[in-house]
């Protein structure tokens, strides 16, 4: 009896040790409708383990602290283009094997299937999002004029009166100001790198300076436009899209002059859950999942094959409407658009940030 009890105990203990614990991965992301889309498209469809999403405020401050102290709490982070490059350069992210990721149905590797060049071996493609101007339907009708169409109209407070909601940092604003000033989308970064290019952008920004309301959190511009506090605002396209598609908000988006930004997944260097995290990243970057997040929000998959899945299955959005017209990286939205250049911002971002803060405060 005693022997068998001992044996049973040993067996139970053994089982407890041998049985692989259910894989658990922690993903730091941005919260709101965006994280909800990731939860539904990636985590809920992942059978090999559980992924827990937590919210963070962007930047690599937290990541750097965790990696350099060796006390790692997050496994995966959802990062912006600039952070994706700096973090990999500084050795804060794991460099990932490239051949384990799911190729497109036609056999194209993931890296070649991505719409922009993959900057390094740390990143896994996510989505494109954009800064884009929008207004409330009917805002400019009552004034007896035709509604704004172009990015130049956004900077034209004379013909399109009312305040403008813009964000408290310089990204995208410099590009938009130059496009509004007549620079072709393809030449924007050449002008920004040239002497006087930045002055030109700030001169254009000066023209709306007195009519500007600044926002710093993504939901704010929608409230500003909805309440009439401003007549037009820049916002993240997904926020506007979510309001239009899910809540029927009467917003009109002007894609002209939008600035697209990349969003990547990276893995923290030295995470104890390397294998599980890699498995999750493989899952989350497969074409099916890439497309799947667009059921819940109108951010564009970075992989062409992801877009193909959506186009082939319209109406794709969960409410049963077509989502392609709302994608920032397809169709009419791309007619006059700029992909933000992270390399330019890596060189000049800090100097521009100081200048922009000074400009705001003057």
């Amino acid at each position, binding site marked *: 009896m005693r022997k068998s009890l001992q044996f049973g105990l040993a067996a139970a203990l053994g089982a407890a040790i041998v049985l692989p614990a259910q894989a658990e991965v922690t993903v730091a992301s941005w919260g709101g409708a965006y994280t909800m889309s990731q939860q539904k498209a990636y985590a809920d469809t992942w059978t090999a383990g559980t992924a827990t999403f937590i919210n963070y405020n962007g930047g690599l401050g937290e990541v750097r602290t965790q990696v350099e102290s060796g006390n790692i709490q997050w496994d995966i982070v959802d990062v912006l283009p600039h952070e994706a490059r700096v973090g990999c*350069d500084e050795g804060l992210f794991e460099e990932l094997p490239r051949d384990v990721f799911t190729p497109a149905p036609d056999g194209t590797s993931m890296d070649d299937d991505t719409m922009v060049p993959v900057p390094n071996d740390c990143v896994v493609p996510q989505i494109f999002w954009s800064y884009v101007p929008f207004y409330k339907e009917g805002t400019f009708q009552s004034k007896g004029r035709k509604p704004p169409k172009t990015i130049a109209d956004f900077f034209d407070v004379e013909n399109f009166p009312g*305040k403008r909601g813009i964000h408290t940092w310089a990204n995208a604003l410099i590009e938009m100001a130059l496009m509004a000033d007549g620079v072709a989308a393809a030449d924007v970064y050449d002008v920004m790198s040239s002497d006087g290019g930045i002055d030109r952008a700030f001169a254009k920004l000066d023209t709306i300076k007195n009519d500007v309301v600044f926002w710093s959190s993504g939901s704010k511009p929608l409230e500003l436009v909805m309440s009439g506090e401003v007549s037009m605002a820049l916002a993240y396209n997904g926020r506007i899209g979510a309001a239009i598609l899910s809540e029927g908000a009467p917003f009109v988006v002007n894609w002209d002059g939008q600035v697209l930004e990349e969003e990547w997944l990276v893995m923290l260097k030295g995470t104890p859950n390397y294998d599980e995290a890699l498995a999750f990243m493989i899952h989350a970057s497969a074409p099916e999942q890439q497309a799947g997040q667009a059921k819940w929000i109108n951010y564009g998959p970075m992989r062409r094959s992801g877009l193909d899945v959506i186009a082939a299955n319209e109406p794709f959005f969960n409410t049963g409407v077509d989502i392609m017209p709302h994608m920032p990286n397809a169709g009419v939205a791309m007619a006059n658009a700029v992909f933000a250049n992270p390399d330019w911002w890596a060189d000049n971002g800090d100097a521009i940030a100081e200048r922009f803060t000074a400009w705001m405060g003057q």
Partner: protein
Amino acid sequence: MAIANASSAPILTADGTPLKVSLKRSMRRSKIQALFLVLPAFLFLLVVFILPIGNLLTRSVDDTLVNWQLPLTFQMIADWDRANIPEEELFRAVFVDFTTVNKFFIESNRGSSVNTSDAAWWVAIPPKGPYREAIIQINPAWGDVVTWQPLKEIVDRSLEDTGSEKDNKHNQRRAPFDLCSELTPLTNATCSKLFRALQNWDGNSAPDEPIFAAVYKDLASAQKILTGKSSTRMNYEQPGWKGLVRTSIRAFKKMEGPPYKEAMIKANKRWGEIPFWESLVLMKDNYTMGYYLNAVDRRFDVNKKIQLQSEERRVYVMLWWRTLLISFLVTVGCLVLAYPVSHLLATLPLRYSNLLMICVLMPFWTSLLVRIVSWMVMLQQQGVINDALVWSHLLSDENRLPMMYNFTGTVIVMIQILLPFMILPIYSVMKTIPPSYMRAAQNLGAPPSLAFLRVYMPQTLPGIGAGVILVFIVAIGYYITPDLVGGKDGRMIGNMIAYHMQKSLNWGLGAAMGSVLLGAILILYWIYDKLVGIDNLKMG
């Protein structure tokens, strides 16, 4: 007689030891006990307060990382005439600094102790091996078993069985990091190849080629990280370094050998621009005051003279003044509002004052964000107050007051948020003032205003002092509220600190600004002590 005897002889306790000794002993024991009681608090303070502040202060002047990366360049740039594009020699130093790992093997590898004539710097380790000979040529110590043994120890320790599988796994995962932080200044580089190679080594025989190959390859990847980090640092000094380093690293791989000058300028024209070379001069010491200068809109020129920052980038001095102004206005506003409320609280009958107290504390228990958002609803141009003013024809529709997303909004919201910090200390002091004093003063003929000024108010000063200091110090470091409601001219220095800590990763500048803030608070505290006296402070 017996009594006299007893008084001259030492008094003994029951067990025969003199009372004095016994007393001392028990005092010491209670002292040690007391020490143990405060020990947790002291350790807590040390860990969460003193160490981070020390870390902050070091970070604000530390410049060792980039000195690790560019030892030869910094040593040689002293001879540069600072007017023309440098000679081939300096270009070669840059090339060597970026492409070789010799620096990790040489002992005096940083700052002024670097000896450029030491042949070790110029030994070329063949990228495809053999590595052993070249590394020993750089530093003969690496041929010695003793040099390797501490590394072997790290490996062995990580392989010891701790009894818990999780801990074992953790230790083995951290060991490659520990190895690299032994060999390099980096805590986030991994020496995984060396970790594996050293496992197969017995620890006594002369280390063989595979171990040298492993250490070379691991250091080469650590060098990549060091390059990434230092290019971020260099970019703070001169925008454009980041891109210059990135493109150059690619170009360096294709360069066959000297001369480098032309090839490098051809690869990226910034190598031919003086400002980039000038910025190197400024980074060449292990310690820098540059971050502090940056925090007050100054910078060093190439001769280490302090200059004003270029005009469009001057932003911090303005923010410092604004931060002081906002904190001052908030403190005054809180005082004006809190004083009568505290008086009411202290003098009303208990059942009313309790209710009032709950009203004071209620916002304290409400989420900060909820309060901020409700202020937005109230104050914005299409908000409740403006609507009411327009509706009552006090304002025309075109002239709605801008009270939100600007300076005014920040001050109003911060006053509301910080009000309890002012009310509570003042209230607790007022509570202790007997009402009879005022009555006595009036009985003696003082009109109420005089009685208030001469009798009541002076007694409340300790509470006012406590409230003022509390509110001012909390206000000066605020950043979440200004970020949400500050808009164009209501943002404070805390927002820039947060930006540099989280987004730009310029921790040096963030730390310098934090230190200045700390210094400013200490100075104000000192002034307060001189003017009012810190022992007059009363929290209750």
